């Protein structure tokens, strides 16, 4: 039954699956047809089938009851489209059982548990999705796992995209995100694994030679683009930004786009595309894809890497930043930051942080497994790894700006300075230094969102530095922008604090001093009159509470 749905992208990959037609085997499980001695001679394929079935039943029997119950329950929840139950099963049930029983091994194969779910192929596809995700994360996938997980993904997307109309499935958002995330992760993992030609066995080499379109960049992109197109998510986002009504939106996005399943998959595919394009080194396309999406701090898993990148950017282009971010960054990367701010000698620090924070770049093209001769040549002259390639591009940009920090520190000291004098301070050739000044000028300009530009590729050139200069023939004039002293905030805060202290003291009961007998009498007479003014005053204060209007 898994073979019935034709995957769009590639030819059959089933050499490694054995010839057994599972349809026969699964037909009657646990029944006694096996031991019927009326048939003395059983032919070879049937014998194999029977043996296989026996093995599967044994495996099924070995599964812990808790797991079996979970699978049945999970299946029922999916059938009922019971979103809350599915979410519980997906988020805690699966993980709990993994920790308990499958921390270091695989979950039972889909075929084995199939009887528990009446062979529901859709559920089995979902089950396999989880199964392979587990394999990739806890255990090293072997070549079969890789091809099979690809096949399963194709089945899943095929089902979602090519059924007659939107499918009646409902899945939690977290799961939908994880499906896309995992798909891209497996793609990347495959590319990295595939590029390592040397340690492959002969069998693996053969399989790779015939791999065809499995895990090709085209098919991965195809999936993501198809999900985006089916859900009309771009039109949806644009309509939202233009403030269209709910009814209009339903018109625009069609029957697929209105279903949350497809809408979320479309949206996550946009982000997925961003990732894939970055992995392949196509940054402009990555940014273009995000045109309709508004980024609101959606990324939080990789905060550390972001701080590293921030350190790099700030070292290259010093500008005023929020104190909180700056402090956290200095905590983690203070040492590297100081080095990077010093120009040329900071290059190793740049390298270290770049490699840490950059995406795991991949090469779009596989080594030429189909052609033995080319493959040999490839091994002898290994091409540079993509990450190294991108790193050297980055570093060449960094080097171009290497003179800037030193120039900055000198310029900060003056309002105007002759170029010759400056070059003397720097012990540099005057003409060279003037050229470096031009670089510094360019380095302090960047394209940034000024007005409401759409998308991430828009913007205008503005200055990012607090230090600016211009050269008048040979005289350098410098201007710095500074932050005025912030009196008001401090003033207000302290005034309010003082006010609070005053109120507290004012409302506290008077301390009672130790008294002699005569004092007690005098106090008793004085107490009632002093109580009155206090209450009058509180009465007054209440009347003034938030009645201040803007001028």
């Amino acid at each position, binding site marked *: 039954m898994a073979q019935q749905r034709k995957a769009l992208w590639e030819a059959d990959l089933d050499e490694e699956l054995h010839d057994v037609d599972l349809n026969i085997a699964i037909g009657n499980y646990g029944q006694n047809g096996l031991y019927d001695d009326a048939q003395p001679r059983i032919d070879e394929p049937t014998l194999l089938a029977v043996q296989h079935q026996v093995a599967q039943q044994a495996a099924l029997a070995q599964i812990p009851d808790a797991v079996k119950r979970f699978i049945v329950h999970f299946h029922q929840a999916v059938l009922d489209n019971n979103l809350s139950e599915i979410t519980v099963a997906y988020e805690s049930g699966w993980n709990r059982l993994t920790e308990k029983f499958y921390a270091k091994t695989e979950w039972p194969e889909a075929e084995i548990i199939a009887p528990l779910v009446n062979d529901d192929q859709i559920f089995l596809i979902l089950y396999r999705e989880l199964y392979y995700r587990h394999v990739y994360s806890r255990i090293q996938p072997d070549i079969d796992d890789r091809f099979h997980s690809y096949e399963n993904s194709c089945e899943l997307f095929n089902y979602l995209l090519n059924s007659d109309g939107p499918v009646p499935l409902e899945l939690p958002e977290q799961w939908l995100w994880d499906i896309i995330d995992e798909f891209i992760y497996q793609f990347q993992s495959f590319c990295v694994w595939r590029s390592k030609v040397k340690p492959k066995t002969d069998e693996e080499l053969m399989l790779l030679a015939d791999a065809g379109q499995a895990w090709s960049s085209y098919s991965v992109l195809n999936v993501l683009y198809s999900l985006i197109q089916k859900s009309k998510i771009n039109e949806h986002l644009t309509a939202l930004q233009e403030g269209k009504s709910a009814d209009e939106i339903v018109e625009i996005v069609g029957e697929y786009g209105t279903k949350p399943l497809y809408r979320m998959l479309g949206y996550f595919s946009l982000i997925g595309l961003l990732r894939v394009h970055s992995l392949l080194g196509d940054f*402009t396309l990555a940014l273009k894809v995000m045109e309709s999406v508004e980024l609101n701090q959606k990324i939080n898993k990789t905060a550390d890497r972001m701080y590293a990148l921030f350190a790099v950017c700030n070292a290259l282009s010093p500008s005023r930043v929020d104190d909180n971010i700056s402090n956290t960054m200095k905590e983690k990367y203070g040492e590297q930051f100081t080095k990077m701010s010093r120009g040329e000698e900071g290059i190793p620090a740049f390298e270290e942080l770049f490699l840490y924070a950059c995406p795991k770049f991949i090469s779009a093209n596989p080594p030429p497994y189909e052609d033995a001769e080319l493959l040999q040549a490839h091994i002898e002259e290994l091409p540079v790894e993509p990450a190294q390639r991108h790193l050297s591009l980055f570093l060449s940009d960094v080097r171009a700006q290497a003179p800037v920090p030193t120039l900055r520190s000198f310029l900060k000291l003056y309002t105007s300075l002759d170029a010759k004098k400056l070059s003397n301070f720097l012990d540099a050739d005057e003409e060279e230094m003037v050229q470096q000044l031009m670089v510094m000028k360019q380095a302090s300009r960047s394209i940034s969102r000024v007005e409401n530009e759409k998308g991430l590729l828009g913007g205008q050139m503005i200055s990012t530095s607090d230090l600016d200069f211009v050269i008048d023939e040979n005289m350098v004039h410098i201007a710095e922008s500074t932050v005025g002293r912030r009196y008001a905030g401090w003033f207000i805060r302290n005034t309010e604090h003082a006010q609070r202290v005053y109120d507290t003291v004012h409302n506290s009961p008077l301390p009672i001093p130790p008294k002699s007998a005569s004092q007690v009498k005098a106090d008793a007479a004085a107490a009632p009159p002093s109580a009155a003014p206090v209450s009058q005053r509180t009465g007054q204060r209440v009347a003034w509470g938030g009645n201040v209007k803007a001028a």
Partner: protein
Amino acid sequence: MVSASTWATPSTRTELIENLVSGVDRYNPSNVGILEDYLYHQIRSEEYDCLANLAILKLYQFNPDLYNPDVVINILIKALTSLPFPDFNLCISLLDERSASTNPDEPDPLPLLLPVLTSLHNLLQQCRFPAFWTLYRSEKAESLRDNYTVECVGFEDSVREVVIRGVKAAFKSIRMERLGNYLNLSDEDLNGYVAKLGWSIEASTGVVSIPPNPDNQIESTVVQEQIELPQLVKVITHTQSA
């Protein structure tokens, strides 16, 4: 001010190309011819469209048999003239490493020319203009000049535009001699070029004044803090009740 939107969508791009670049058809290998023709159009008419050229490189990335080194070299040449935009490096990031070419009859010219192109790019990026011209006119770049840049209409003038962009951002006025070095022009050619720019030359001192633009006008600013009325509410209410 330079706007990124014209970089992303040049006015000279036709609707046909726009659909290709922005849609899924950009992945269709049979469209590569259209984009390559567009590149040659850019070369002949002094136009430039970065995203369309990147689309060609992307097709080469996924379909290595479409690879045409002449096209790549021309794209890189065009990208050189787009500084300070990062186009050159964007192109390079799309050039996957190629396996050793097994076709000795048609050697791939790119590996030989790439170092020269990269050096030229780095020199321009570091505003080392005199060094750029020296390298460009030297023997090392001979093959590049004779086979490629000669075909690219107005290449040298486009590089001069890069120079001018750098100069007018950093300078209010500049000596003719220095400017001439940067532009690789002298005497009448230089005078003519400066006149065409509309810049005025002070004949006695030999200094060119550069018209004001946002980059070469500087002023110190002090960022004042802004106080909004709501922040003062608490303080004012208390003054009333005191």
